[in-house]
């Protein structure tokens, strides 16, 4: 059954399958049209597709010069972002990959620079021999740890360093033994080739991160959900669902679930009742999940309009999001802002769970441009000819929620105040890539 449906309708699954066989340009065009046609639409699907595509792009790139790699990734990234500028995770992943390449390139230069300073000029081979095994070894050790914390510690240092040393090694590179001795081709060539392998490995880590992020976030659940609390949530989000499930394993609480009509109520109903239809191949991992009610949690499904009335009884609002912006504001499913306002009025803590990959360095100067407008037919039935003729129907898919309405962000790195997000942004993205 799934094989037929995936063969029929293009989507993430068919894209990933075709990625292996198709030529690289075909795959890029393919993803662009999938994004345009909204056949890949959730944040995670977009992020996964982008990451796999960039993996292919870089492994297909025969040049091992980091500058060229950056250029290539930038050009692909620009096209992807232009295809669907409102899926900000696409840009985020591209920036992460660009950052990876720059880091690796600088690490190598740094190492080489340091060596050529310290080491004697007569033996260009030894630094390679020393450098080659040590670097992957170092990386392996690092990759075991949650990579965010490691980056947090490392990246300011490298960026500070690059600020000062950036022009210098570049100037000194040609004058190093490379250009003098005939064997010098090796050190010139060797590290660059290394860069590519390192970057591929780094993208692999990003993909792993995308797979694990929900479980990592869920690990913080017990710190935030206490017994006998009443939790309000909205729309269907795997992240929130896993978060609640984790807590439900240990504690008893009540969940009030707003259905987010008209764009997502059907999925919400499925999430609540657990009757996941089998033909939804993208969310197939979720369909294995038991719904909260099976764990003895009381789940109350309410229409969105009842949110304000119930807010006074709610202890905590836990929401998923579409993307998070650098100022701490967020773009989430329509209806989120109403909930956030209601929570503010009732002084109910509002917690947003989100993977770091959704965190975008974009500053929202123009909120309207971030919001996507969907099918008007979901609001007003198209059959109603007389109304359709005379009424302008707008169906925003997302809401912008300003930072001051959010109390806490929980990412896979832990909990942060909205005002701290700029820090995570600067840890994860290089300044030069923010507008690539």
């Amino acid at each position, binding site marked *: 059954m799934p094989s*037929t449906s995936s063969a029929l*309708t293009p989507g993430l699954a068919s894209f990933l399958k075709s990625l292996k066989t198709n030529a690289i340009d075909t795959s890029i065009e*393919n993803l662009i049209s999938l994004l345009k046609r909204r056949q890949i639409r959730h944040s995670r699907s977009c992020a996964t597709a982008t990451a796999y595509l960039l993996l292919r792009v870089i492994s297909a790139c025969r040049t091992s010069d980091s500058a060229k790699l950056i250029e290539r990734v930038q050009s692909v990234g620009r096209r992807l972002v232009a295809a669907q500028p409102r899926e900000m995770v696409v840009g985020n992943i591209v920036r992460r990959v660009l950052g990876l390449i720059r880091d690796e390139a600088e690490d190598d230069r740094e190492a080489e620079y340091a060596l050529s300073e310290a080491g004697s000029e007569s033996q260009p081979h030894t630094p390679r021999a020393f450098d080659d095994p040590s670097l992957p070894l170092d990386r392996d050790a690092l990759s075991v740890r949650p990579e965010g914390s490691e980056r947090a510690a490392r990246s300011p240092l490298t960026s500070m360093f690059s600020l000062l040393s950036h022009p210098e090694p570049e100037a000194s590179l040609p004058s190093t033994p490379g250009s003098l001795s005939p064997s010098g081709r090796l050190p010139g060539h060797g590290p660059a080739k290394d860069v590519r392998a390192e970057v591929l490995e780094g993208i692999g880590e990003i993909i792993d991160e995308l797979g694990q992020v929900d479980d990592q976030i869920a690990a913080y659940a017990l710190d935030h959900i206490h017994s006998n609390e009443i939790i309000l949530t909205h729309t269907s989000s795997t992240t929130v669902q896993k978060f609640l499930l984790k807590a439900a394993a240990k504690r008893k609480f009540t969940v009030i679930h707003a259905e987010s009509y008209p764009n997502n109520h059907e999925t919400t109903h499925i999430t609540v009742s657990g009757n996941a239809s089998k*033909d939804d191949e993208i969310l197939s991992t979720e369909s294995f999940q038991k719904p909260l009610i099976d764990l003895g949690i009381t789940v109350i499904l309410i229409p969105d309009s009842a949110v304000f009335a119930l807010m006074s009884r709610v202890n905590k609002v836990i929401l998923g999001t579409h993307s998070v912006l650098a100022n701490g504001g967020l773009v989430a499913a329509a209806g989120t802002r109403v909930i956030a306002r209601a929570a503010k009025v009732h002084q109910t803590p509002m917690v947003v769970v989100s993977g770091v990959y959704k965190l975008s360095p974009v500053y929202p100067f123009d909120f309207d441009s971030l919001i996507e407008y969907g099918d008007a037919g979901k609001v007003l039935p198209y059959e109603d*000819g007389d109304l359709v003729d005379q009424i302008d*129907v707008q169906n925003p898919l997302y809401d912008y929620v300003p930072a001051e309405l959010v109390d806490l962000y929980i990412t896979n790195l832990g909990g942060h105040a909205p005002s701290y997000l700029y820090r995570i942004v600067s840890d994860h993205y290089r300044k030069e890539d923010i507008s690539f």
Partner: protein
Amino acid sequence: MGVKQKAAAKPKGNAAEEVEETLQAVVLADTFETRFEPFTLDKPRCLLPLANTPLIEYTLEFLANAGVEEIFLYGGAHSDQLEKYINASKWRAPSSPFKQLNFLKSTSTSVGDVMRDLDGKHLITGDFILVSGDVISNLPIESALAKHRARREADKNAIMTMVLREAGRNHRTKSSSISPVFVIDPTKDRCIHYEEIDHHVEEHPARLNIDSEIILSHAELDIRQDLIDCSIDICTPDVLSLWSDSFDYQTPRKHFLFGVLKDYELNGKTLHTHIIKDNYAARVRSLKAYDAVSKDIISRWTYPLCPDTNLLPGHQYDLRKGSLYQEPGVTLARSCVIGRRTVIGQGISIGDRTTVHSTVLGRNCKIGRNVKLEGAYIWDDVVIGDGSDVRGAIIADGVVVGKDCRIASGALLSYGVKLADGVTVEGGMRITKSRRDGTAAPSDSAVVGEGGEGYEFVPGDEDDEDEDDASDASSGLVYRMPNLSLSSASISTLSSDVSDGSWPRSGGSSVSGDEEEDHFQQDASTSVYDSLRDGVTVDVVQLELVSLRMAANASDNQVRRAVVSAFMKHIQQLMEGGKGAGDAVHEVFSKYRDVIDRTLFDRNKDDKPDQVDLLLVLQQDLVHRLKGDTVLLFAAKELYEIELVDEEAYDQWWHDERSSGSDEMRSVRTQTQQFVDWLANAEEESSEDDESDDE
């Protein structure tokens, strides 16, 4: 439901095959109607921009969405332009979602011809989607497809599923004058009866004729008039053979659907419906629908097929507040007012105090000062002078409108028209530069003013099948609708031409008899023609011809006419393919000599009525063909050389008054004069020889 059925049906069925089956689609890029004249005089209809994107893009996008892998695109008028466009488009790039995109050219003049042509080509291997090149839909087709397959699995006779969109009683995308009525058995989703009700016929109120048997034999019936027929059909290959069986079917609904349903007892095929309630599906079937669908696209009913999806590479539309789509690179004067539901393309400049509302503006337009645009569709490179007022009109590429012009609702300005200053264009007027035959027409200064270019185009005179005409004044835009003029020319041009001529009829003269004759001739001529084209052997052609003749009880004369028509058509085609007339004639006649031989029964008589008849038919047919005179000469010579026609017959033919009855007939045989003269001389000589032998 459908999914489950399918899952249940699969284990016993051939599961592996079904998975591998590639989904094919047939796109009818031309619908053989003239509703978009005068624009379609210059461009194929499916390249007309709808919200600045050519219509065909939406259709192909829909098919890509549905996961179609092979597409057969049938071009009609201006198919060279369409082919050029498609070849340059992203659909031909290696990244195209379609594994194959075949552009088929045909000389068809109706949908029926296309379907029969397709059947003859044997390209369709499995289920396919049949859409016309003006469908806009965001419908995921898989549920309809799954249901169709499940039905087909259960019953081989379920051959087609029509996708219909539910809509209320009054809807802007529905056609307002002719409404299709579907009688459906809701328990099986089966369409039982179909009829089109014309609201304009005043004499008798709308009436539906349902066979009493239908009512008696079905427990439950839905009679629905609220459906938008978006002409998305999921068909099995059997559909094509049904088309082939019935040569008089031309339109997919009025003829095919109606006919197949009526003949249910005969063929046992069932047609089904899939009624959708959620997604968007519509056809741009007329200018009124053009207006309605444009509005739907702009107000995002068709999401994600909206301007800001930027279907075409290079488009950069961006959605602003109030359904305003704008590309970068637009120059707006500070005091101009851009209202809601507007699309503004790149390179546009809009002058001071101009107001724009509910308007689509293509690229590189120059709009002057104090201009009022409301509900207008303005394509690329249009210049509109200061102080003009345009409401609800369509203005095509490159039009120049002078200062202080007034263009009323429903006016159509075709490509390159120039209006002088101060001209007023009445509502519903069509102004164009080119004529039907493609030549430039002299300008009519009464219409376009001094120094303007263009003349008023009067739509075709087929008023009888007028659809969506001016009587629906209630809809915002009033278009004086172009007429639905289905070309009546069919594949056998001879049949209609000849029967129009003063040909002595050998069969009964009753109306039904005439019809039957026409059918036979069409059938036979098409069948023979197809066989010639495919290079089938003589025996097979003969067999088919005989069976057709038996079935229709056709006279010899009819058989000859059919055969000659087919032969000539094939020869014509060979000549178009670069062959010389002599070679073509020789090739066809020598190969299929027997076919003609079997139509002649006067070999051993002195009087040669059959052979004379053959030559007359030949002559008659060639009157209307290109280089008819040359072909006639060669054909006459060839017939003589392969000993089909005797000298006497030539003589009798030449002196028959029917052969020189009209100027046309005379002119076509002028070249043959030399052959007849030569023949006469030879005859004398040979008779002399005979005499000498006797002595």
